[in-house]
């Protein structure tokens, strides 16, 4: 622990001194050092990440590296409130039994075969991650996988890996799947419709590619499952294992969630129609719905806010965004953007490649929100260089989501799923058991995105 702390301080301090030596100002060097502490803090001291950003942001303010007004501006309250609203809605859906209904749906698949199981868990994982956040969706998919694998007496690990990878891929399909989706949407001006028309099809393509790879990779496991399915016969017990009370609550909750999604999907058109600022409807819809929910369920309103909203994570995001903002405020990102563009010879294709691969590799080790928060001001700075930013935003989104598949700690969904696996089945994932398949899927899907972004005129 002490050694890690010394490494963290050493690297951060060293980086600050280095950039000062090459001509940056003291404020720029400090902003870089403190951001570096926060990034390395998430890597070495995950449980202390909030204290690190609290301390770091305070230092930035005291040293006048950034002023209070800009800390508040960069903290992106819009994104945070959107996430709060969505978390309340997801809490309501959970309580109403929506997710248990999804689990039941998987358990009730008729004439289950190994292939059918593989395809359905992948597609359901991806689509569920599109509609709600990936961390919520993975818990339910894992629950379904465990029930089925227990029933047929097979190791659930390969299927868990597959569903996590489908979840990470799926989370890039809409604004709702991953916090980086809404973060990118709010900073880039991309709409929900843009995500559906541009990101969703590529996500489906990546999912198909992943299915082909895992079908080959786990062919023996699938053959084993197929054999067990034939041996143990039809899954009568699974079909009636769990039920969800068909209550009015579930229907009303589904209605509220459906209406929210409907308005979110049409937000851009409605904003144009009503002359509202871009993303106003997108960001306020979850707030409107969760506000209504808190009137409907007023006795539980406090529980929704205190238990379903992950304040620990959200506060970390806010202050991290503020620290990334300090990089922009002090001009660090402008310097970085200029150098990156120079390196790429002002070629957009080359720059797309850099953003995509750096974010893919970066998010395989770091939390993707940390990486995207740092990258956003750099991409914004490209604007002054007269570059088309749109393909770069998509590169950042896909890099941030697909990179999560490469290592077992690449995304929160991986960590949550592997935590359950260890607790429930006493199976501890080893780095390389995940890494080889993760690397294959991660690299191949990123190549697919790279090809799409650089070759299809649609994305230019």
């Amino acid at each position, binding site marked *: 622990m002490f050694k890690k702390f010394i490494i963290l301080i050493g690297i951060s301090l060293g980086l600050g001194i280095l950039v000062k030596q090459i001509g940056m100002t003291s404020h720029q060097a400090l902003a870089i050092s403190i951001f570096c502490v926060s990034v390395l803090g998430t890597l070495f001291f995950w449980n202390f990440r909030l204290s690190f950003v609290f301390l770091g942001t305070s230092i930035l303010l005291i040293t006048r590296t950034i002023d209070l007004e800009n800390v508040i501006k960069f903290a992106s309250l819009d994104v945070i409130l959107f996430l709060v609203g969505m978390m309340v809605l997801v809490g309501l859906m959970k309580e109403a039994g929506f997710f*248990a209904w999804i*689990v039941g749906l998987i358990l009730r698949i008729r004439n289950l075969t190994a292939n059918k199981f593989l395809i359905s868990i992948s597609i359901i994982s991806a689509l569920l991650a599109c509609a709600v956040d990936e961390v919520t969706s993975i818990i339910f998919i894992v629950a379904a996988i465990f029930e089925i694998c227990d029933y047929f007496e097979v190791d659930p690990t390969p299927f868990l890996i597959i569903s996590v990878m489908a979840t990470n891929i799926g989370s890039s399909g809409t604004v709702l799947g991953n916090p980086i989706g809404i973060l990118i949407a709010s900073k880039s001006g991309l709409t929900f419709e843009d995500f559906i028309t541009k990101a969703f099809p590529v996500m489906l393509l990546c999912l198909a590619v992943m299915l082909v790879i895992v079908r080959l990779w786990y062919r023996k496991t699938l053959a084993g499952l197929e054999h067990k399915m034939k041996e143990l016969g039809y899954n009568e*017990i699974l079909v009636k294992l*769990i039920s969800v009370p068909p209550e009015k609550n579930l229907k009303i909750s589904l209605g509220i969630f459906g209406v929210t999604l409907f308005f979110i999907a049409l937000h851009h058109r409605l904003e144009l129609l009503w002359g509202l600022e871009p993303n106003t409807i997108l960001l306020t819809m979850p707030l409107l719905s969760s506000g209504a929910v808190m009137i409907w369920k007023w006795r539980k309103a406090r529980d929704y806010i205190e238990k379903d909203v992950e304040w620990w994570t959200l506060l970390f995001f806010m202050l991290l965004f503020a620290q990334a903002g300090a990089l922009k405020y002090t001009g660090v990102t402008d310097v970085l953007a200029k150098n990156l563009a120079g390196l790429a010879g002002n070629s957009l294709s080359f720059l797309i490649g850099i953003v995509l691969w750096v974010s893919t590799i970066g998010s395989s080790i770091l939390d993707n929100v940390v990486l995207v928060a740092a990258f956003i001001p750099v991409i914004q700075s490209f604007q002054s260089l007269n570059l088309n930013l749109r393909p770069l935003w998509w590169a950042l989104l896909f890099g941030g989501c697909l990179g999560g598949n490469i290592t077992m700690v690449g995304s929160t969904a991986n960590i949550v799923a592997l935590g359950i696996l260890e607790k*429930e089945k006493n199976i501890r994932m080893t780095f390389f058991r995940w890494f080889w398949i993760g690397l294959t899927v991660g690299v191949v899907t990123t190549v697919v995105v790279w090809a799409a972004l650089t070759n299809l005129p649609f994305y230019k």
Partner: protein
Amino acid sequence: MKVKEIMKKEVISVRPTDSVLDVLNLLLKMEISGLPVIDEEAKLVGMFTEKDIISHILPSYIQNVGRFIYEENPKATKIKLAGLNNIKVSQLMRKEVITTTEDTTLCEVARIMLTNKARRLPVVDKSGKVVGIVARGDVLKAFAKEIENPR
């Protein structure tokens, strides 16, 4: 009134290496909900309750999946029940235990129980050795006594 006047001094305890199945049978036989876990030096190392067994038997994610009804017992539950004999108390016990001391007052021990939602508190000495146990029932009996004999 102090804890030493109301606590039970003969403490039945279990060892971290005891099997969960044996302790489950002990809990059922004694009709109580939990027992302190002590090491060779009689020092408190944890608390083992029936809640720990139930939460082990059900899936760990159960509290995150929201509302549904189990119509059958899942196979995983059956597997876990069959394996209770091979699991040690140390694997399921709660290691952070709220304790009290012999000189704590009646109202203070009642406050600790209420605010920590604890049914029974191990009473420890300065070295961490268990010297007694005080349950909600003991506290209530002491209060009842005070009603009968108000000072």
